[in-house]
């Protein structure tokens, strides 16, 4: 009988503990979610810091790093290729119509 009471007591204790622990876990999860949300919101408000500073961009001012160093030449070559191929577009340039010889 004593064993039975002990078992019931253990059962009651064990049945109470999961509820408490579950509630605790949910509270912790909510706090984490709130913290992440607040962090994201604050992060969204603050400007993104450039990871390459302006004084570290001297290489991009070098003409050899330009995507369009000689515009008159690039436009011409693009026209030559486009009029001989089926593919077109996504080159960054704009050409006129035809001249499809």
């Amino acid at each position: 009988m004593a064993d039975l009471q002990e078992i019931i007591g253990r059962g009651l204790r064990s049945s109470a503990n999961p509820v408490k622990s579950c509630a605790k876990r949910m509270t912790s999860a909510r706090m984490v979610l709130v913290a992440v949300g607040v962090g994201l919101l604050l992060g969204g408000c603050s400007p993104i810091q450039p990871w390459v500073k302006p004084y570290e961009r001297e290489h991009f001012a070098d003409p050899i790093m330009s995507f369009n160093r000689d515009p008159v030449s690039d436009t011409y070559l693009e026209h030559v290729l486009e009029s001989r191929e089926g593919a077109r577009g996504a080159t960054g340039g704009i050409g006129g119509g035809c001249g499809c010889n």
Partner: protein
Amino acid sequence: MQLTVLRKGIRIFVAGLALQRHARTLLALCLCVTPALAGVLPDDRTDALYHRYQGGGITIQGPSVLIQKKITDNFALNYNFYQDYITSASIDVKLSASPYKEKRTQHSGGFQYLHGKSTYSAGIISGSEPDYKANTSYYSVSQDMFGDLTTVSLGYRRGWDNVYRDIKDVATGRLENDPTFHQQADHRGYSLALSQILTRNAILNLNYEAITDQGYLGSPYRKIRYSDPTVPGKGFTLADQIYPGTRTSSAASGTLKYFLPYRAAVSGQYRYFRDTWGIVGHTVELGYTQPALGHWIFDGSVRFYRQNAASFYSDLFPRANYSNFMARDRELAAFHSLTLGVGASYEFHVPSAPWINKSSLNIHYSRMIIDYSDFRNALYAGQDGFTAGNEPLYQLNASILQAFVSIWF
């Protein structure tokens, strides 16, 4: 004691000078280093170019002149004059038409307006050749963001073309527009671009463009051919092409450029293309730029392109009226091509013209080889034992020369 004080004073003065030098260098860098992306108007410059394309029985040559000029700190204009002088006896012309000569002239003008971190651009392009008139307008807006590391651009263009067909006047022997033939075509393009500085040595460009066409999209001169055993020798008969009236294409590309430690640049590009005609194309290009000997810049590039055929393309249709749409344009065939390019640029100053900041003489040469997988040289049909559909596959070898002078002012 006095000597020690004097030494301390000299040290402080020298340190001050060093600091000033450091500060001056930083200041100079801040002033000189401008982002190579949007938010900066293009340099004031003029380019005068001579171009010559030769290959496949076609020679196209002529001038191109570009002028870019800032009118105010935030407003720039540009103008380009371009001409082609064409002498054509290509395989298509030999098969279904007569060799011809003609001239094409194109004018284009536009502006760029810089407002804060935004750049607005617009312009028009007008091309005219005896049997083709084309007008295009374009608009784009670019926005710098994230500390000028990122530039996003949106673009739109619209084109209106008038297509004519030349016929030879029996009396005079001159080419004139066929009064019974006049077609039109409309084009619209939508583009999205992203430029991203990745590191202090690497920059990435991503481009996407969708283009839609409507109207007459074929060539009025080129023909299809179909098997015709009743024709002795050749075994085929020519007929008019029938193109769909619409086409929509999408292309996406990515280009990465990297600055090497010894002042050189290497770049790689890939482009994927597909359209509603069933063409899928892949382009891969690698480039290398090497400054040398103080005034010289050398360029080298290799470009590989590959596409499959359009769904309504055939080199030889089985019979007349085989399908609703039929074409035999080489541009719609399956092929792969290799283009090798080299270039040299020599920079110099003109002491007698102090208004010129910098000048350069440039020469570029490219060799293009196109190997067609299902476009045959129909001129061989009926010769040397070749029959229709068994002729050797066609190969195009072309050389492309550009010589130009650039002046920055």
